[in-house]
């Protein structure tokens, strides 16, 4: 699904990703953990194609294609979805409208017929239930006046509608209370399946109580310094990130 080799990226003069290699296979869920400033969000944004970051080296292959060559909308249409850490507000544009435009752009490219308003509505209603999303929110302007939890839930709802092949969740758990966390996690778990891969970027272990990852990677100062199974997350929770720092200092 996704193969990253020695990926390097910088913003301005500051190098943030210093050679990341990661392989995510179809059907897998990977968690990327790390302290603040380790480069987690940068990695997510680089994969989604944000041009604030300049890729300075390495490669990324997505479904056999050169991901870094693709425009952000191209990546999205080919099934790459990112749930934003800070979802933006778009006044006057409803979530429904945004989603339909996005979904139909992808369908058009795949040679499929565009969904008409009725078909789209029934698809949306079905998915809204999964993330316990109030229908009135979907008809409101994108994220405008939404609470932090509603914004995050809206991201998961959009993911459910767009049915991506590779979903990247950028700190979707931050700022969520325990109920919202459970709803978000359920939404993600329902999407899990043999045709998809999910990358969960998080600072805390608690989300991984609900979304149990196949692999856990620890990102530190722009490098993956440790990888392991789901138990690595628990170990991190137990010992804290300082444990990694100390280990690295000793090495």
């Amino acid at each position, binding site marked *: 699904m996704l193969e990253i080799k020695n990926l390097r990226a910088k913003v301005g003069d500051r190098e943030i990703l210093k050679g990341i290699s990661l392989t995510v296979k179809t059907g897998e869920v990977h968690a990327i953990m790390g302290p603040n400033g380790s480069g987690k969000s940068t990695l997510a944004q680089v994969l989604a194609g944000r041009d604030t970051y300049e890729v300075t080296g390495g490669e990324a292959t997505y479904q056999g294609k050169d991901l870094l060559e693709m425009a952000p909308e191209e990546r*999205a249409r080919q099934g790459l*979805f990112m749930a934003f850490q800070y979802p933006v507000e778009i006044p006057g544009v409803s979530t429904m409208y945004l989603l339909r435009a996005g979904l139909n*752009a992808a369908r058009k490219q795949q040679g499929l017929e565009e969904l008409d308003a009725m078909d789209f509505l029934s698809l949306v209603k079905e998915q809204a239930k999964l993330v316990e999303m109030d229908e009135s929110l979907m008809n409101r302007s994108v994220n405008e006046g939404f609470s932090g939890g509603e914004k995050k839930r809206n991201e998961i709802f959009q993911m459910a509608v767009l049915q991506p092949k590779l979903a990247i969740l950028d700190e979707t758990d931050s700022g969520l209370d325990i109920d919202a966390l459970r709803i978000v996690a359920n939404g993600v778990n329902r999407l899990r399946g043999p045709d998809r891969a999910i990358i969960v970027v998080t600072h805390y272990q608690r989300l991984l109580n609900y979304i149990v990852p196949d692999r856990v990677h620890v990102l530190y100062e722009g490098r993956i310094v440790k990888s392991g199974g789901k138990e690595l997350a628990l170990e991190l929770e137990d010992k804290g990130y300082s444990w990694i720092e100390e280990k690295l200092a000793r090495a």
Partner: protein
Amino acid sequence: MSTSTKTIQDLTEQEYKYGFVTDIEAETIPRGLNEEIIHLISEKKHEPEFMLEWRLKAYRHWLTMKEPTWHNVHYPPIDYQAIFYYSAPKMKKAPKSLEEVDPELLKTYEKLGIPLAEQKLLAGVAVDAVFDSVSVATTFKEKLAELGIIFCSFSEAVLNHPELVRKYLGSVVPYSDNFFATLNSAVFSDGSFAYIPKGVRCPMELSTYFRINAAETGQFERTLIIAEEGASVSYLEGCTAPIRDTNQLHAAVVELVALNNATIKYSTVQNWYPGDREGKGGIYNFVTKRGRCLGVNSKISWTQVETGSAITWKYPSCILQGDNSVGEFYSVAVTNNYQQADTGTKMIHIGKNTRSTIVTKGISAGHGQNTYRGLVKILKGAANARNYSQCDSLLIGDKCGAHTFPYIEVKNSTSRLEHEASTSKIGEDQIFYCRQRGISTEDAVNLIVNGFCKEVFRELPMEFAVEAQKLLGVSLEGSVG
């Protein structure tokens, strides 16, 4: 002159075959303006004496006036003696099919979703057997006549309904009003006239089916709409298709009169040639539009979408004279490349319990300069008058500008006014968010801009609203890297 300019001009100068047939002469009056020219214009139009006198009064007053300089737009001086004040149609060779038309122009029509038959008409292709609106127009004209609605060209109205013209002409925008309106009063060529009799609700949007005709506007157009007691009408002006014209100065006047319990809704989509990317050429659109809510409980509502012209100078206004009368102004103004717009409204509250609403959306891209200028004036007798104003500006890029000049004069302490203003920029993060959902940059900008304008678009008649959205996209094309 580019091919497209030429073909469109060919169209506008062609004898119009459908609907309003006006007397069209085949000759041209010499350049420049003097009393003799005004005599000639009036004579050629076979106008009654009162019209000639009115024109002359306006002309003599115009000579004493100075061109205004208070607005926030810049242009080289206009030589008023170099203009043809009566240009009769010249028959040029029209293209035989769409293949002969500038492909750039066709591409724009395509984007606007203009039906093929209409494209041909707009592009000036010989259309005799193509466009079926002849019959449509005739059918509707008959239906209107049954209801006693008069809808015709201004020239026809002067000849056939002189008593109405005499009573209402200049009653809202007097001949002495301002430099450009006064010039228009002296030399206006033609325009539209609508009269809705007592108690009649006009059953269709006026000019929807006549809009090609409406596009055939002169340089000095004049419109007069009268809604009698209890009457209501929705009037559409303009055309979303790009009309190119080599006349640089356009000075139109629109007067609306609403009597007791009458409603007039006036919607405009203006898409005159804005000039090229470097700011060369383009139309100066200096328009005076004003409505008088003469009767109690009357209502006048202006909705405008201004995307064209090199310079727009326009303040559709309401004089709220009748008690409980209502004035509304909804506006979207777009300036891209080197366009300049100084536009807004005046709400003059005279009667008791009068209410007005102003919602404006200014969008600046490229080197565009967008100014909102508005006046809310509450006179002494306007007890319990209310106004709500909302002026929002959206900036695309960092070379454009947005300016807001709201003037408020209140002479009655029982009135209530609210004013809200905001300026925002289309954010990189908003565009990226849309792209991450699979939407191209161009579509993302359209989406965001249309969202920004939503409150105004929903005031437009349905069919117009759809076209206006597309038009916005075309106008802003290439504005984001």
